[in-house]
């Protein structure tokens, strides 16, 4: 078997940093427990290193927005110049880049001039354009979900699909404040508090278990991802 030094170095770094951070986070807020577990100097160094690694990760995450913005611009400039896709796609890319440059320019000028937040054009662009568009998408989401429920039965009829749609209908009808629907409301409450709650916990427990298993295997070097 060929052993690559790069892989060994990467795996050792992951294992070392992961274990130090895990122990530091577990014992970080309880210095007495940490001191009992590993002696005073060892525990203080462990906690210091764990906090340092977490801080490095936080700073990296914050800086990654710059990488994201560069990616966005490169993808759209590339699409506009190289002529990928239809004319409309290229126009979309051009508009995106122009609006980005315009918004950043407005923000810089406003900062330069000390424009108050109430009269800020960049704030207006965010709150009155971006949020308004997102709200309209949220409204559209409702119809999409209803259409999705309709399509669910149209595609392939099965017991679980019928059960799913029936449960949705019961919960929707149960939330209506109409006379004569008290039984439906009680059924809806029972559905939400017993089977729905149990199912949700089951899914979350499954995900948590898989996360811990994968995490432990990464920490002990058994899963080196696909490298």
């Amino acid at each position: 078997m060929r052993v690559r030094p790069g892989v060994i170095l990467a795996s050792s770094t992951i294992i070392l940093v992961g274990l130090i951070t895990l122990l530091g986070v577990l014992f970080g807020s309880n210095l007495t427990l940490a001191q009992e577990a590993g002696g005073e100097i060892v525990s203080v160094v462990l906690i210091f290193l764990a906090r340092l690694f977490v801080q490095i990760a936080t700073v990296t995450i914050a800086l990654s927005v710059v990488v994201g913005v560069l990616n966005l611009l490169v993808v759209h400039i590339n699409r506009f110049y190289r002529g990928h896709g239809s004319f409309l796609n290229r126009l979309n890319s051009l508009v995106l880049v122009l609006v980005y440059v315009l918004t950043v320019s407005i923000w810089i000028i406003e900062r330069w001039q000390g424009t108050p937040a109430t009269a800020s054009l960049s704030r207006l662009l965010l709150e009155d354009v971006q949020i308004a568009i997102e709200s309209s998408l949220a409204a559209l989401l409702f119809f999409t979900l209803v259409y999705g429920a309709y399509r669910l039965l149209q595609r392939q009829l099965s017991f679980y699909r019928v059960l799913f749609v029936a449960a949705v209908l019961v919960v929707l009808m149960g939330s209506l404040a109409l006379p004569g629907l008290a039984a439906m409301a009680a059924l809806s409450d029972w559905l939400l508090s017993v089977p729905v709650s149990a199912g949700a916990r089951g899914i979350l427990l499954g995900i948590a278990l898989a996360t811990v298993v994968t995490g432990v295997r990464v920490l002990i070097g058994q899963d080196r991802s696909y490298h």
Partner: protein
Amino acid sequence: MEGLVQVVALLVILAVFMLNSIVNALTRRRDLVQRRLPALERLPDLTAVSIEASRPLHFSAGSAAPGTESTLLALAGAEITYYVARQVTLSDAPPLLTVTESVALPLATDTLRLAYASRGRLERFKPVNVRWYPAGERALAFAGGLSALQSEEKPAANLLTGSFGTELALILDSAQRQGSTTLSVSDRLEGQAVAWAMADQPLIGEEVFAAAGYLSEQPRLARRNAVLDAGRWLLVAALLSLAAVQLLNSLTGA
């Protein structure tokens, strides 16, 4: 209370470590038979359609990203992307990867690069096929971006394996209108419900972590699935035992 949480966390990690060691020891010299996951059985067809129709495969991890609570989910999604994307590196339409967390961009780019490198086609790798769609409130801007991508790029299939909310409905609806097959799973309950109801091939919960074992045919990943299955049965047994004890207590008390 805080000390108790730490002790429980440590015990859980140790228990999983022991379980992992036991399952590894028991299955070391065996060929493992993994349980069926119907959603993954159609993946070879999807890669074939992508190559034949010159339509890209689209992968998205949603808001799953390294450095956050969903770090391991992001890694699981990257594993799926790697094993599927390497099958379509020949295609005229290169695979597309989208993320909404900028911190996930390096992981996504490296995943795609490694997929090409594994087939010796690194010259075909283009970083612009990894795209960042910024998330606004409720991630609807991301959903809007991916809906537009469906009509612009016309992917043959969408593999949405990561962290999504109800906005997943908009993406799935747009994909299905374009005749694109969808495989979807989310670690968030509302996203998981939408995925089950609307995706052509839904995965459920932790199945996203098991997918790499099926796609890679690597014994170590199959063993991870065996550990997961054993852990799930132990968890079920523990929950049923606790429920039985509580029932007995209440009956005795009555």
